[in-house]
């Protein structure tokens, strides 16, 4: 665990010292703000519905930010050869992956923190419950966690960051649209696709301020699966 924390600290330092990290946050945040203005604030709505709309946009932009933040994590280590430093140190592969995950979660946390001005504006100008905000952010955090884990898996597969981002993006999109597959398949396959859907099946309750254990378990399981797969890829590379 000590090694994972060391790796996380170094990685977070790399995010904070590099321009690319801030650039990702700035661009995604700007687009998020525009979408919030265009979709969540459009028309006449109750404050709670506006907040629901904010978290709907938050889902998408958190997923995008997660894919972009995670693309460099392992791909860059391979590209620059620094992975050999980690491989030849007394650090387990799971600690490498977990360290990367912790740092990217902290950085994604900064992004989510930067979005709080939007619900704060709704809170000041309307009437919403703090519980809905907390639940929405909790859900966004879980989505971010799952997408980061998928992103780290994608990053473990490629040497190029662009390829890693494309691979992770494809996996996240596949998870988002899996409910469409459910419509054209029969049982039990359609049950599987329905329950796999990253947004459709699991996120709307968070937007409304509801936290269901099944949704939490889904996102945590997806996070575990992504990190587990990335660890196995790192292990397999030693045998390759």
């Amino acid at each position, binding site marked *: 665990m000590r*090694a994972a924390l*060391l*790796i996380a600290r*170094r990685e977070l*330092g*790399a995010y904070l*010292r*590099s321009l690319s990290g801030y650039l990702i946050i700035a661009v995604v945040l700007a687009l998020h703000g525009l979408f919030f203005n265009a979709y969540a604030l459009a028309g006449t709505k109750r404050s709670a519905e506006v907040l629901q709309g904010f978290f709907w946009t938050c889902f998408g932009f958190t997923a995008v930010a997660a894919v972009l933040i995670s693309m460099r994590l392992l791909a860059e280590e391979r590209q*620059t*050869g*620094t*992975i*050999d*430093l*980690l*491989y*030849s*140190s*007394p*650090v*387990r592969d799971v600690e490498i992956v977990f360290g990367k995950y912790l740092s990217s979660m902290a950085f994604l946390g900064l992004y989510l923190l930067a979005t709080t001005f939007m619900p704060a504006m709704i809170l000041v100008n309307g009437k919403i419950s703090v519980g809905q905000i907390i639940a929405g952010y909790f859900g966004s955090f879980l989505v971010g966690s799952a997408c980061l884990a998928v992103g780290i898996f994608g990053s473990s597969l490629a040497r190029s960051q662009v390829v890693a981002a494309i691979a992770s993006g494809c996996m996240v999109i596949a998870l988002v649209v899996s409910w469409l597959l459910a419509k054209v398949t029969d049982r039990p396959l359609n049950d599987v696709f329905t329950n796999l859907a990253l947004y459709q099946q699991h996120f709307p309750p968070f937007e409304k301020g509801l936290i269901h254990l099944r949704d939490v378990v889904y996102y945590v399981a997806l996070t575990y699966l992504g990190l587990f797969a990335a660890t196995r890829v790192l292990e397999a590379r*030693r*045998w*390759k």
Partner: protein
Amino acid sequence: MIQVEGLTKYYGSQAAIQDLSFSIAKGEVIGFLGLNGAGKTTTLKVLGCVLLPTSGRVEIDGYDVVENPHEIRKRIGFLPDAPPLYGEMTVRGYLSFVAQLRGVSSEHLAARVEKVEEQTALRDADGELISSLSHGYRQRLGVAQALVHNPALLILDEPTGGLDPVQIVEMRRLILGLKGGHTILISSHILSEISQTCDRLLIIQSGEIVAQGTEQELARRLGGASHIELEIQGSGERAVGLLRAVAGVQEVSLQKQDEGTATIRVEAPLELRPALVRALVKADIDLLRLERISEKLESIFLKLTHGKGAG
């Protein structure tokens, strides 16, 4: 310190190294020589626990690389062919990170980092960003990261790669300074470096060890034993006749006759050197130079690798 038996590593269906066997004793400095693609880097990566072998047994300090890689990693310092550096960190920050990663306690951290900065002459670059360092500094920092936890075994893959002559001399001094305290395995293309820094050589070709031993042992084995070269004043032909008459001399040949001086090659045991000198002095021939000429590492290397792609 290192026991390798039947080490084989495949990349897909391609064998990078095949059935390698060698052993390295504690405290030895070993030069690992081979042409590009011979399998040096793969072997060093297996020893550095970066890659796992396809088959064979590798033991370092009594631990098996497959069963106990974690224990081995605590005991080794590995410099890959490209130094594994994080450009956004400072030299000190990076060394502290690596030291902690390799288990140096916070109590000893500052002292270890300072010591290794001193050893590798990095003190003046202590607070600099790695991205702003020159190639020579980066290479030294690569060695420093391998040394920072004071490992028993140092594995250095091309430590002098891309360095200018001054930096090469500095690196050689650094490696010679580490002798005695660590077992060192160095791979290099610069044969003179290996010749000057290593106790023993391992020569690898097409994934197989083709020879191992000291430079002299290899020269002897290849039939290129040392000979004696003499430079005299006066007629070479007269001196050749005198030298041929010395008991034990196998062959004498006139190499060069310039104005007033001659160079003569004598094939004879080295113990005959005093007798050769006496024979010349007795005949009132002035001896300007007597030198033992050994087979150079380059020619040993070329013979062993059949000169493929070399030079």
